[in-house]
């Protein structure tokens, strides 16, 4: 029997996937599909159509009789091909073949014994066949895992979907013996292979990950992804001093796409179909999901993350991480570490810290002092300006803050406003005025009758401690200077301190996101009451009059 003959020497066809036919069917399978083993008359029709048909025949043959089982080698050989289309065909064929085998239960169930042992052993032929086939399945899966790193995206996508199909089928027809009644079984091995393939350290897999995101809709896949991801991260960073940025990016991508359901409820949307769900399974409890989620993030964040990934994590922290953690206070370490880094990262960490302080009773020493330290000129130019000022507004909204602190903040902001662009000024000037409104004790900053005339500003901008900055002794001369600002709206906003401030606060929420371009458009659209005024000094040349700076400092040629 041919099948047995070939089955009899499978030791050479290890699961390295280089399963070549011994019986003269040449290894031309690597490049040409036209191998005599597939039948003599098929030499003419090379190409994808022919290949599909040929593979189809093979699959039919294998599925039809166990005697044709050796044809699996041919299919697996095509998987090794270089050609993208051939690989795709082969993947399709494998998917059909092993899908059918899994459904039929023609694969060995239980801990897999080594191939040689079984084949040399004297058990029944069926068992031998099943073990042998299970080994082929194993090698196919391994090959598919490798294909996740294939340069072509179609192949990757196809490999991923095939693997996920196997996961589903294997979940329904587990290849392990259930230890007890209604034991929950999930193909952990296979799934870890998938996640490991997704979290590649070599290249950015964001496209593939976005494909994978649709599987994360299912509760069981999500749960096992969290477990597998934390394992994979642990394994990838284990003992390695330098982890490539691509890995962190992939990991972050995967982790951030895991989102737990907001409201409690039974989790029932399963990828692997079960006839009935048992209450004893961990997968069905949201609590367990939370635990897994927390563990995953903690394991991820305990590493020294690159700054960019750190920023990304902080951006989504308040919205999609903290609410789902079983114990949000565990994030304190990470957040304080980030807050101490300084710059934009600190600004972003503020948001998470705020939630911890506000909702989880975190005691943070010197919080305001650090916040004060965060205020430097770049704060008006960074991307997260709106978020920062939104939070700063929240932090400073308490009326129980000491006056010296608020005064120091107002003075600091006013000082920074001297270097700010108009769109930031339009936001920060009402901000300062709001501070003064909330804290009447600080109104001395804008109204100090009978105060002594001073030689210099008593405020010390270099002092880090707001208590020592002597801001309360100063006045907001900066705003007075900004009344001379070239933009009319800024000038008007700065002039608000000339009169006693009106009682209601100005809401700065609509001002936070204003960009210079919006102001520009607004100014363009505004219609003046009168006709356009014209310059009455006639133009003489491009550089203007002699006393103009342009004429003094530039020449035409």
């Amino acid at each position, binding site marked *: 029997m041919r099948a047995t003959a070939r089955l009899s020497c499978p030791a050479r066809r290890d699961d390295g996937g280089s399963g070549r036919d011994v019986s003269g069917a040449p290894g031309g399978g690597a490049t040409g599909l036209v191998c005599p083993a597939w039948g003599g008359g098929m030499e003419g029709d090379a190409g994808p159509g022919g290949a599909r048909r040929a593979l189809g025949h093979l699959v039919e043959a294998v599925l039809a009789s166990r005697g044709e089982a050796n044809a699996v080698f041919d299919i697996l050989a095509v998987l090794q091909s270089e050609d993208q289309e051939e690989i795709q065909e082969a993947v399709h064929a494998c998917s059909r073949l092993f899908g059918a085998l899994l459904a039929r239960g023609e694969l060995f169930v239980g801990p897999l014994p080594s191939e040689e042992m079984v084949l040399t052993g004297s058990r029944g032929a069926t068992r031998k066949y099943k073990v042998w086939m299970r080994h082929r399945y194993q090698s196919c899966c391994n090959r598919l895992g490798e294909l996740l790193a294939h340069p072509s995206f179609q192949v990757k996508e196809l490999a991923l979907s095939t693997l996920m199909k196997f996961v589903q089928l294997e979940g329904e027809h587990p290849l392990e013996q259930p230890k007890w009644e209604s034991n929950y079984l999930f193909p952990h091995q296979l799934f870890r292979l998938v996640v490991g393939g997704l979290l590649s350290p070599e290249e950015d897999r964001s496209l593939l990950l976005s494909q994978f995101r649709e599987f994360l809709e299912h509760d069981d896949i999500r749960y096992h992804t969290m477990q597998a991801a934390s394992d994979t991260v642990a394994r990838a960073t284990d003992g390695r001093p330098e982890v490539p940025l691509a890995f962190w990016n992939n990991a972050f991508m995967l982790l951030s796409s895991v989102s737990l359901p907001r409201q409690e409820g039974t989790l029932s949307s399963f990828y692997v179909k079960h006839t009935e769900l048992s209450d004893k399974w961990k997968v069905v409890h949201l609590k367990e999901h939370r635990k897994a989620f927390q563990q995953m993030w903690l394991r991820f964040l305990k590493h020294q993350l690159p700054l960019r990934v750190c920023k990304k994590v902080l951006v989504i922290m308040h919205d999609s991480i903290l609410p789902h953690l079983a114990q949000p206070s565990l994030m304190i370490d990470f957040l304080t570490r980030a807050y101490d880094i300084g710059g934009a990262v600190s600004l972003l960490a503020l948001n998470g810290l705020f939630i911890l302080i506000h909702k989880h009773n975190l005691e943070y020493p010197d919080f305001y002092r650090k916040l004060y330290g965060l205020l430097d000129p770049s704060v008006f130019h960074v991307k997260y300006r709106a978020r920062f000022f939104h939070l700063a507004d929240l932090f400073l909204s308490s009326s129980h803050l000491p006056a010296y602190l608020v005064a120091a903040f107002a003075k600091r902001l006013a000082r920074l406003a001297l270097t700010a662009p108009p769109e930031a000024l339009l936001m920060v000037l009402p901000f300062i005025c709001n501070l003064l409104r909330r804290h009447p004790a600080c109104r001395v900053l804008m109204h100090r009758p009978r*105060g002594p005339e001073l030689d210099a500003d008593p405020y010390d901008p270099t002092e880090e401690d707001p208590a020592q900055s002597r801001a309360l002794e100063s006045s907001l001369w900066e705003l007075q200077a900004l009344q001379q600002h070239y933009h009319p709206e800024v000038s008007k906003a700065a002039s608000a301190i000339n009169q*006693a401030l009106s009682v209601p606060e100005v809401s700065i929420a609509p001002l936070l996101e204003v960009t210079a371009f919006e102001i520009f458009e607004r*100014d363009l659209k505004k219609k003046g009451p009168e006709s356009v005024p*014209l310059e009455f000094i006639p133009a003489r040349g491009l550089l203007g009059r002699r006393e103009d700076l342009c004429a003094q400092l530039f*020449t035409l040629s």
Partner: protein
Amino acid sequence: MGKARSAARGRASAAPAGPWGGRARPNPNPFEVKVNRQKFQVLGRKTRHDVGLPGVSRARALQKRTQTLLKEYKERDKSSVFRDKRFGEYNSSISPEEKMMKRFALEQQRQHEKKSIYNLNEDEELTHYGQSLADIEKHNDIVDSDSDAEDQGVLSAELTATHFGGGGGPLPGKAAQQPGGGEEPPKSRRELIEELIARSKQEKRERQAQREDALELTEKLDQDWKEIQALLARKTPKSESGGGKEKPEPDAYDMMVRELGFEMKAQPSNRMKTEEELAREEQARLRRLEAERLRRMLGREEEAHSKRPKHLSADDLNDGFVLDTDGRRLLSYKDGKMNVEEEPSGDASGGETGEEEEEGEGWSEGGPEDSDSPDGHSDLESDAGSEDARGPDSPDGLESDAESEVTSERPQGGQRPSPRERLTRDVRAAARAELPYTFAVPESCEELKSLLLGKSTEDQLLVVERIQKCNHPSLAVGNKAKLEKLFGFLLEYIGDLAASDPPELCVIDKLVVPLYNLCQMFPESASDAVKFVLRDAMHEMEGTVETTGRAAFPGLDVLIYLKIAGMLFPTSDFWHPVITPALLCLSQLLTKCPVQSLQDVVKGLFVCCVFLDYVSLSQRFIPELINFLAGILHMATPNKQSQGYTLVHPFRAHGKNSELLLVSDEEDMATWQRRSLPLQWAGSLKAQSKTEANHTRLSCLAVCLALVRRCVVAYGLLPSFHDITQPLRALLTEYLSARCCPAALQELSRSILTEMESQPRHCRPLVCEKSKPVPLKLFTPRLVKVLEFGRKQGSTKEEQERRRLIHKHKREFKGAVREIRKDNQFLARMRLSEIMERDAERKRKVKQLFNSLATQEGEWKALKRKKFKK
């Protein structure tokens, strides 16, 4: 209808009842008086109905009703109406005389128609003045109706004699008058009467003739007056054009003579102004404009008095009548030439046009061609105005005027306005024989480019100028829109020139002048065009900023646009529709564009220059500028401790461009000479040798330092000047301490530092303006004028009036209802009495019948009994 009528009647009947019912009646019957006794005396209440005469008023009402309502009631079924069927009785459009004539004609006609065709000897009756002569023969006392009307009550002797003298003999007066004609047979009575009639007729005719004469004379006088009036008031009465009377066409000579005559009399205002006067006027104009500019700079609202009403004469009736201004032009001189066409008539035209035209004068510096075109532009409104004013004057109004304008202007718009000009122009024309003289306005930018490209600068200027002249808005209707578009095209063309390599800045330099002129002509469209290019540039930048957070410096064209915008519009305004967006645009350039090459440095410095020029008058504060200059200085500073200053966005303290301007070659420093930066470099900086590059760096640095100095001077008075310039100060000290720069620059920076230090540090504590104290709440009662007692108070005047009317209406309504009710009662009473009367009559008749029947019966029975007895 009945209601209305009865209401009216009721009112009519009620009205006299008032006085009758009042106390005014002398001695009323005490039994008829009814007194309404008042229980309490209320102070201030007028009592109107305390005494009444109910019986009397009822009787009056009844009487009135019997006179009116009863009559109507009785005639209710009678439909005959009197109708006046005389001809034209109700036609008011026919005059009475005409009516009479027509009536007479009709009557005649009726008489002419034979009553019966068989009546052969029916004669027509002869009449005189509507009276048959036969009648006159019978009654000789007929008086002429005309004379009757006119000399009423004056009876002439003859008339009296004929009337009252009676008798058949001759009149005694007549006989006495004609002593000579003794043997004349005595006139018969008929003759006499005829004579009399003839005489009176003649008199009448004479009188009519006299009246006509008088009329004619008046008319003539009127006409004479009108002519004189026309000359006096320089205004033709409207009746003249309306009245179809023909006037002899005045010939040209007469007209001219008259015109000249009156012109001589007109104000001798436009003598040539002396240099001094011109200078003074110019100064006044500039002062006024400057004041206006200051107002806008401070952002104040337009003061009320700037819109105060026009001067009103004491004699003004305030009826909206305005004496039309004289449309004719007066002889005037300008620049030594007779101003034939365009000048508006002196002071009569508004001050503004005068100024504009002076403005035009201001910039036209020499070229005789120039001196005309601005006048043409600025006179737009005044021309239109004068045309309007002249409208009624000339018989065929606007068209002829426009025509004359066209014909007169065309040669000027073309080539030959005055001999002197022609001379120079001929020379020029000879030089550029190839340029056509007329150009259509290009419809697209490409067209303009094809016109201008490849020509020399001078030629391009000439072409643009000719386009403007040939298509002056006063020449044709669509020209205005065309020229408005020309501004946009020119702007685009300038952008192209600036973007070309190398940028043709000299051409742009010259093209700025026509651009300015066009802008003066069409401010709205010019501002729209500038806004459009700015928006374009910003939009482009915004696209890259949104994705990357930064953008490259835009091309030279955007910078040129910004510079030009600053020249066309006043940059010092607090808010300006073009300048404010332009400022934002500049600010974006300085904050969003990182400096990556020497070219960027040049561009950035140019932007700084433009920015500072924008605020040179208003001295406004630009934070971005300080940041940028600090960044540039940072680039030139060798060893950075980064103490005392922080750089903001486009600059980084450490990076690949952080030493872009650093020059370390001693030799280059020694050979460098300070000069101004060529603007061309912003467009395309060619590859330079190392020394040249170093020199460029040093030049940039010099410019930067100059700008810093300017800032120090400008912002010296700002309250927190030292905080603002603190980074600059730190950088300059560091720069100086490095000692690696040419002596000139060292000197410059040292002087800047000392200047910074010398600025006063005045830190006066801020004090809010005193706001008006909020008045305490007062609890005194509110006083309301009591106008009328009752409930109609405490509201506005309109409300009170409304209430009064409502009240009145209600009362009237009630009165009317009451009257109607009384009418109905009266009618019912009348009807009842009628029925009763009828019934009584019937009863009486029935009784009578019964009586007669009874007697008959009795008689019959008696007869029967008699018979029976027998």
